[in-house]
């Protein structure tokens, strides 16, 4: 029962090494100050212990020089920590262009994962070593948080919007996947594994097994099943809704002034709450699709609309699957 008890987590991503360096720096600085304070207090308490019942201490009222010293030095040290923490944060936040994208949906109490090629997983996430992976995450019900300790990354999964995180696995292996935001009865059961594989093994895994439609293909089918294409026409004629080709990532003028960037969040909002931000020149006639499409289907629709703005007709990860 007590054979395996680590005191430090595995370091299995490029990010983990950066986070750990900062951690050890802060550990060293804070340990030094803790020991300094403890040493001074214990030392003073022993040296100046009361020897006679009516002894009193020496009247010392203070020292401006010392006050400045112990204000400025901690200030400077914390600013170094701030800058270092901010640097690590920037790197954790900004996924490089061309990162492999994977969709994740959290629901009480499981993780559903869909790869761009159509592979689906539940409570498991297979990723290749050495390649940046970006997760686009949404929730079907309450807050969750996707947490891979071995990679030192975490992001809340929030209903009603998309959150992102990214990492580059650096060491093949199987690692814990936890839900870190309390989400109800079986919160501690909302766990799984992240399996980092060498690229060749990952390719083999990706092309094996029962793949289904890719999110883009599934989104295209939904787009016509839900008759989106009657208004958002795709034959270069203007319908009742705006044309969606080459819109993703661009600034859009809104009715009533203002602009918005057409990102995943805006596309999602326009499906579930179409009257919130209407494109300039259109009347709000679109019905809401809230409750008619699941979070997964929303992600598929978003993936499809996104693909309409991609230069090549191929999906995001071209030339990886000769077999399909």
């Amino acid at each position, binding site marked *: 029962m007590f054979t*395996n*008890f680590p005191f*430090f*987590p595995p370091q299995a991503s490029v990010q983990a090494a950066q986070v750990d360096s*900062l*951690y050890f720096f802060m550990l060293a600085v*804070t340990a030094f*100050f*803790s020991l300094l*304070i403890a040493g*001074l*207090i214990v030392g*003073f*308490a022993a040296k*100046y212990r009361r020897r006679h019942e009516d*002894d*009193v*201490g*020496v*009247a*010392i*009222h*203070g*020292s*401006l020089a*010392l006050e400045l010293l*112990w204000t400025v030095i901690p200030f400077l040290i*914390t600013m170094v920590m*701030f800058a*270092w*923490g901010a*640097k*690590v*944060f*920037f*790197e954790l936040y900004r996924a490089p262009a061309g990162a492999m994208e994977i969709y994740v949906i959290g629901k009480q109490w499981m993780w559903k994962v869909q790869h761009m090629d159509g592979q689906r997983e539940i409570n498991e996430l297979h990723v290749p070593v050495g390649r940046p992976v970006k997760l686009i995450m949404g929730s079907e*019900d*309450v*807050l969750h*948080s996707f947490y891979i*300790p*071995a990679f*030192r*990354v*975490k*992001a*809340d999964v*929030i*209903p*009603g919007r998309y959150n992102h995180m990214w990492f580059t696995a650096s060491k093949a292996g199987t690692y*814990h996947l*936890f839900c870190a*935001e309390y*989400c*109800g*009865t079986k*919160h*501690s*059961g909302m766990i799984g594994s992240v399996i980092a594989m060498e690229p060749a093994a990952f390719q083999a895994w990706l092309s094996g097994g029962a793949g289904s439609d890719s999110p883009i293909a599934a989104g295209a089918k939904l787009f016509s099943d839900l008759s989106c294409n009657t208004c958002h026409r795709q034959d270069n004629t203007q319908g009742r809704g705006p044309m969606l080709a080459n819109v993703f990532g661009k600034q859009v003028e809104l009715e009533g002034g203002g602009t918005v960037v057409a990102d995943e969040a805006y596309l999602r909002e326009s499906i579930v709450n179409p009257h919130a931000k209407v494109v300039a020149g259109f009347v709000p006639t679109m019905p809401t699709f*809230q409750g008619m499409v699941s979070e997964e289907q929303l992600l598929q629709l978003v993936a499809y609309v996104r693909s309409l703005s991609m230069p090549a007709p191929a999906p995001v990860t071209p030339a990886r699957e000769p077999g399909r």
Partner: protein
Amino acid sequence: MTAPGEAPKDDMETLNYLNNGHGLGSWLLTKDHKRIALLYLASITAFFFLGGLFAFMIRLELLTPRGDVMSSETYNKMFTMHGVVMVFFFLIPSIPAVLGNFLIPIMIGAKDLAFPRINLLSWYIYVLGGLFTLIAALSGGVDTGWTFYTPYSTAASNTHVITAATGVFITGFSSILTGLNFIVTIHRMRAPGMTWFRLPLFVWAHYATSLIMILGTPVIAITVLLVAAERALHLGIFDPALGGDPVLFQHLFWFYSHPAVYIMILPAMGVISEVVQAFTRKNVFGYSYIAFSSLAIAIIGFLVWGHHIFVAGQSVYAGLVFSILSFLVAIPSAVKVFNWTATIYKGSVKLDSPMLYAIGFIGLFTIGGLTGLFLAAVGLDIHVHDTYFIVAHFHYIMVGGAIMGYMAGLHYWWPKISGRLYSEGWAKLSAGLIFIGFNLTFFPQFILGYLGMPRRYHAYPDEFQVLNVASTLGASILSVGYVLPMIYFVWSIFRGEESPADPWGAQGLEWETPSPPPTENFHVTPIVTHGTHQYAPSKEVGIV
């Protein structure tokens, strides 16, 4: 401090606030701040042991990796009730409502607080809020966590959220009224000669705390009201399915609940400043720096709430602003620690139990504060957010800090409050047990957190077990350490030696009036000629 002349030494000596009036009515309808402090003492002690019981059930469950002592539903209710009871019904009222209530009027030479009836009202409001929480607990409990995060609390949980939220809402008013009472009292009721810079640091700390109580508490009251409204009436405020924003709740909640930590820790810092001076027989080093650092903490503390939202998709720049402000709020705390340390230098140090608790406070608060820096560094917080690292950090502040400070204060002023001396040997033993038990409980949790164990987990992977067993063992020692004072304090009331007015050879107006004090605190209003804790003849000894 000048003694109130020669107080007439006749029957007035024997009549004090404890024997001036008998029967339940004389307590439940009292307007005496000292009796109201004791009403609070009794009620928060009950809540403390209730919250402690919940904590012990949590530690019992976590002894093994599998959830085998209780069901997940029950476990989730345990940590929720532990948090709600400890935060809102013990920690927030603890030092202000008991020690502050008892001591502030005496320390400034007043007969009572400015509004004695409001003071009694605030205790009744507290009890009413507590009753709602007990009803929520007895009728099946709440499982949202003390943080009431939406949309779980408004849309998903099927437990007694509204009852518990009502309890929190009501008890907030008790806090607001206490803060208001303190501020007016400190402004208007000081004895002749008690200038602002002669005020004991305990009073300064409570002044800063009262500002937070008045400015912050209305926000939490509105926030839990909105939760109840969304839950009951389906108003779309926080639930995205109704058009709301769940992260908005986190902003509103932490706008109060982060400063609330300072409501707990600032009064404890005030206690430590008094105890360190009394047990070194030396005036504090850097009086005005300590006084103003309390105000700095109160102000900057309102601007750091966003560090609870680093992983909730907040913008990068918001994250950076909250990060730098969170680092800044650490500086005034560091200044206090350095000043206390310098106060011990060339003091006449006696390690009686209040001083042991105070030194324990400084050590544990230092660790708690320094680990806070890890969480202010955004890049590092992302990994440890919502893990046991956080749990360990805030227990070092709230238990290692606030409760150690409360214990230091209780031991220091117990002879004044009860008029009796407790057993110093037992008190030293319990201080030692609490220090050891506390560290054994919570230090392993830092390691668990960096390993990645998330908080609020009913079951966990096997490799975390050794550290969890250590933690539960520590909690067992800690609970003995907390039960002991309960026994020897009660024992002292019946069997303890009578305390003289000043059993420690300390200074301050509270030590010039008899133990226990008369109802009107002083037979003759004192006239103040200098600050507190001036033990040595006042010769300036610079060390610049």
